[in-house]
């Protein structure tokens, strides 16, 4: 059985661009692109981190003598001889770093896998040999690892309290509701594990510093490194033309970057550092474990009357990072009485951070699982239950959604999936030894935008170069920018080349929040428009173009544009140049901001073996509406990848924690389970056409983080349909189902 040789190319629907293949596709599959660590530096030395074997305590003694004695070892850094760096704050506090604990800042150990030494050697093998010869003696203290650990304090900082959304009288309405659900859910620690390992290479040329590092925000890295080293950001350039997967883990600068740059300065030699796979579990951010309590009240005919979502998230001692996804869950369905609250649990862990759909993935899982429980309690079809409670306005503020095609998504996906074959009664469908269940859930992702700047250069040949320091993290952003420019200029996309991922170019947005197409794309559209204006409103072709150049007396026309999202001002561009997300927006003319979201509906079939309870997912169907789709081919890939990831979150992914020792257990790709091909037999993607002219000039909503939002709930709901058992703690694994009678 051979799979088809090429993936199906989706037919573009209404309000969709051409399904062009990625213009760098061939180069990528033939290994041509140079990723950050492939970029050459003259005569680099290799730095290797040595990380702590305990999660809390103090270094009593660190003996590097045996390592120092190895030929080829240049220098070993510890807290006793660390290069000096300025203290920089967490990025949510106006600084740049994703974790404010400074490596080699002192003898204290505050989390598992903390950097305790850096070996610099002529080659990697020597560095690793030396690393193994360093002997460290600790004074160990018992760590507080997670929820429920002794010494883990629960807090609600003011910034989080301000995010609590309320409407009406939840307590009263819940007490009076004829049908109620009160359930607790949890999601585990997860790590991004991009195939491209984390790395930093740094080289100084006098005052000038060059950094090669995979990054989702090169201007943030440029400014962050400068800030930590106390130098002028003008003197720092960051290069990173291709990113081999990121998912949020390469979004904000870690402490590794300034440390490696400081070592390069100290040794007066270029330094390359690659973070080993296991080290990546503690030297980058991760998705924190979350807990949820959902209380829903409804009338017997299925109208929600009360909704409360309380969340708890683990974070580090040093920083108050949170995702607080109640913003989405309280505004999803019509409900007059709403309460919500999020608390943090401070533990001896490194600081968590963005991971694809940071707030929505865990919080929407809890809401959508609870919605399924309520539909079952009401003996109502889960799709119809959502239809009854569909809304076109925020139930909290009354602000309208700019567009919301949720039910269109449900209807299209339900038809394709064959939802009408579902039996509402659990355990009612079997095939041989397999119990079969169907489930569904809502996907959503807010449309966010950041300021962006871009440059366009036109030459008499008609070739256009677009320069923007945005980032293609594997999503197809190069091609999207090419298509947007070609469409605006009315030229063949092959005449447009795009340069990204380099601080030599004007700053674009962080490749996060699914903002790149809308934000960078809007800047590209604007700069192309300016280019057209220089040439009288349209781009002439062939001979006429050359004549136009002659008239202007130049061989090169260059334009630069700054775009700010609606409601943001000039300060958003200034923030961008400082590598900060800035922006904001806020109420327009006293009216509440309209809600901007992309939506989807996801359906899953699960099969569970009656004896061993393995859970397999033979089919997934998802329908999505995200405004204008620039490229249906790359969009389809994003949806596919999202749902496959969602499947992994439902059934496989969790960073296992030794709670006694506060340490991660499965810090490798053999045991940190993500879906492999055998887990993913059939995924149907439906792109529902949608026009939204309010979100931005392109009519584009972000879609990269949409599809992995509903999948885990759809699968968990299907597991209930198959077995009659609610598994509320992700991932849903066979051991949790062994007590089901079958």
């Amino acid at each position, binding site marked *: 059985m051979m799979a088809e040789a090429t993936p199906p190319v989706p037919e573009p629907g209404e309000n969709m661009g051409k399904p062009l293949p990625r213009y760098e596709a061939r180069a990528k599959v033939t290994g041509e692109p140079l990723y950050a660590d492939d970029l050459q530096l003259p005569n680099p030395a290799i730095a290797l981190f040595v990380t702590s074997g305990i999660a809390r305590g103090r270094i009593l003694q660190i003996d590097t003598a045996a390592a120092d004695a190895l030929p080829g070892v240049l220098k070993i850094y510890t807290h006793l001889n660390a290069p000096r760096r300025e203290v920089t704050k967490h990025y949510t506090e106006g600084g740049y770093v994703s974790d404010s604990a400074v490596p080699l800042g002192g003898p204290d150990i505050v989390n598992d896998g903390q950097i305790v030494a850096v070996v610099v050697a002529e080659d990697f093998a020597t560095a690793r040999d030396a690393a*193994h010869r360093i002997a460290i003696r600790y004074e160990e203290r018992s760590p507080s690892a997670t929820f429920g650990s002794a010494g883990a304090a629960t807090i609600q900082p003011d910034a989080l309290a301000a995010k609590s959304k309320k409407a009406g009288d939840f307590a009263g309405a819940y007490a009076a509701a004829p049908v109620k659900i009160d359930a607790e859910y949890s999601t585990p620690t997860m790590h991004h594990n991009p195939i491209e390992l984390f790395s930093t290479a740094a080289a100084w040329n006098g005052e000038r510093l060059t950094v090669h590092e995979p990054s989702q925000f090169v201007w943030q890295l440029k400014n962050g490194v400068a800030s930590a080293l106390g130098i002028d950001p003008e003197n720092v350039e960051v290069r990173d033309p291709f990113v081999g997967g990121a998912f949020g883990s390469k979004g904000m600068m870690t402490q590794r970057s300034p440390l490696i740059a400081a070592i390069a300065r100290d040794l007066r030699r270029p330094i390359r550092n690659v973070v080993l796979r296991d080290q990546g579990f503690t030297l980058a951010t991760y998705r924190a474990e979350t807990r949820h309590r959902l209380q829903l009240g409804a009338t017997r005919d299925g109208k929600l009357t009360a909704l409360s979502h309380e969340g708890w998230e683990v974070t580090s001692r040093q920083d108050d990072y949170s995702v607080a996804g109640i913003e989405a869950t309280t505004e999803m369905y019509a409900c007059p009485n709403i309460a919500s609250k999020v608390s943090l649990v401070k533990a001896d862990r490194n600081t968590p951070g963005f991971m694809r759909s940071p707030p929505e993935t865990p919080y929407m899982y809890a809401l959508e699982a609870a919605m399924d429980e309520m539909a079952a309690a009401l003996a109502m079809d889960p799709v119809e239950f959502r239809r009854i409670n569909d809304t076109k306005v925020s139930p909290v503020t009354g602000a309208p959604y700019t567009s919301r095609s949720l039910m269109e998504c449900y209807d299209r996906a339900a038809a394709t999936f064959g939802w009408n074959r579902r039996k509402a009664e659990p355990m009612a469908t079997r095939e041989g030894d397999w119990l079969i269940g169907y489930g569904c859930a809502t996907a959503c992702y807010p449309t966010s935008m950041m300021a962006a700047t871009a440059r366009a250069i036109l030459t008499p040949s008609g070739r256009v170069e677009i320069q923007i320091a945005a980032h293609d993290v594997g999503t197809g952003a190069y091609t999207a920018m090419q298509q947007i420019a070609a469409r605006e200029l009315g030229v063949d996309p092959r005449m447009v080349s795009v340069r990204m991922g380099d601080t030599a170019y004007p700053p674009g947005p962080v490749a996060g929040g699914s903002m790149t197409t809308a934000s960078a794309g809007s800047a590209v559209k604007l700069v192309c428009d300016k280019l057209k204006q220089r040439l009288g409103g349209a781009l002439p072709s062939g001979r006429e173009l050359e004549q136009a150049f002659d008239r202007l007396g130049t061989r090169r026309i260059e334009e630069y544009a700054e775009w700010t999202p609606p409601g943001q001002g000039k300060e958003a561009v200034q923030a961008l140049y400082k590598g900060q997300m800035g922006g904001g927006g806020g109420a327009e003319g006293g009216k509440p901001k309209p809600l901007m979201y992309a939506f989807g509906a996801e359906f899953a079939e699960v099969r569970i073996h009656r004896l061993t309870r*393995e859970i*397999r997912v033979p089919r997934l169907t998802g329908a999505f509406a995200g405004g204008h789709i620039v490229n249906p081919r790359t969009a389809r890939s994003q949806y596919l990848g999202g749902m496959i990831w969602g499947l992994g979150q439902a059934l496989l992914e969790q960073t296992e924690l*030794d709670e006694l020792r506060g340490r991660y257990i499965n810090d490798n790709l053999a045991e940190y389970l993500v879906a492999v091909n055998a887990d993913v037999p059939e995924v149907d993607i439906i792109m529902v056409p949608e026009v939204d002219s309010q979100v931005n000039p392109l009519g584009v909503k972000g879609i990269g983080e949409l599809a992995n939002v509903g999948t885990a709930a759809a699968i968990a709901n299907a597991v209930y349909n198959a077995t009659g058992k609610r598994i509320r703690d992700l991932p849903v694994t*066979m051991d949790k189902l*062994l007590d089901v009678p079958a």
Partner: protein
Amino acid sequence: MRPFEYHAPQDAISAVAMAGEPAPSHVTSLTQFVGGGTTLFDLMKLDVMHPARLVDITRLGDKGLQQVRRDDRGLHIGALATMAALSDDGAIAKDYPVLRDTLWQAASAQIRNMARLGGNVLQRTRCPYFRDTSYRQCNKRDPGSGCAALDGFNRMHAVLGTSTSCIASYPGDFAQALIALDAHVELLGADGPRVIRFADLHRLPEDAPQIETSLRPGELITGFLIPGGTWPRSTYVKVRDRASYAFANASAAVALKLDGGRIEDVRIGLGGVATVPWRAARAEALLKGAELTEGAAAEAAEAEFAGAAAREHNRYKIPLGKATLVRALLQAQAMEL
């Protein structure tokens, strides 16, 4: 990784002559044989193993080392045959389906192309506390230091054959087929060849988990013999969280000879649940001569796991291990020959 000497001899006698210096066990021997390197290189990078000398055995020209052949004694499998070579052999798949089933489910295609069968059965445990030298407690790595898995995260650890010194599970798959089919292991040492029962190759951890096998330091596995006739009604059920490329939460290799509904002969090897490849002798004894029903299978499984001992996170392995055995027995029974 630490520097090492590398040798690539042309024949097995030269290879074993390079090894054999005294050592507490073959895994701590200063000289290690390397075939595909899929486990050894991994453990050397992690600094769990640091041999001073590697003897590459992939170029040994001895007849039979790379071969799979049959004669009137049974099936001979050369220790240097790759996992892929044996699992892709159609005749083997027909006559010994359990061999193919344990191999194709054992690893990615890349690993199956590299890994040799002799080394495969010696794959060392995936216990995280063993593989990460920053954990001070591991009796297997550092005898007498304790066992962090006992009160650590032990969801993948063993419930059969454990001791208070070690609960690390045996990670492989092929060995379950070999132990079920009463295979012999052919060895070559400095003193010449010898043959042992496969069932005697792996040692229970007891109070010396650092000694994993009965191999003498410097002794080389040259082949396996599966004595007697074929086992066309045989299969392997590997249960795991992920559909492929994952270690077994529980597995069962089953070979049956049926006389109508009655079990004439049955062989069972269990994996994922035990510290060593586990011959389910109690279950076999109950099943032999009995009618094969789901109830009889469940009773046999119950008996086999009667002595199982779980820790905090691996309790599920007792019901799962039983269910896996029942499923494998029924699956073998349902095979159409």
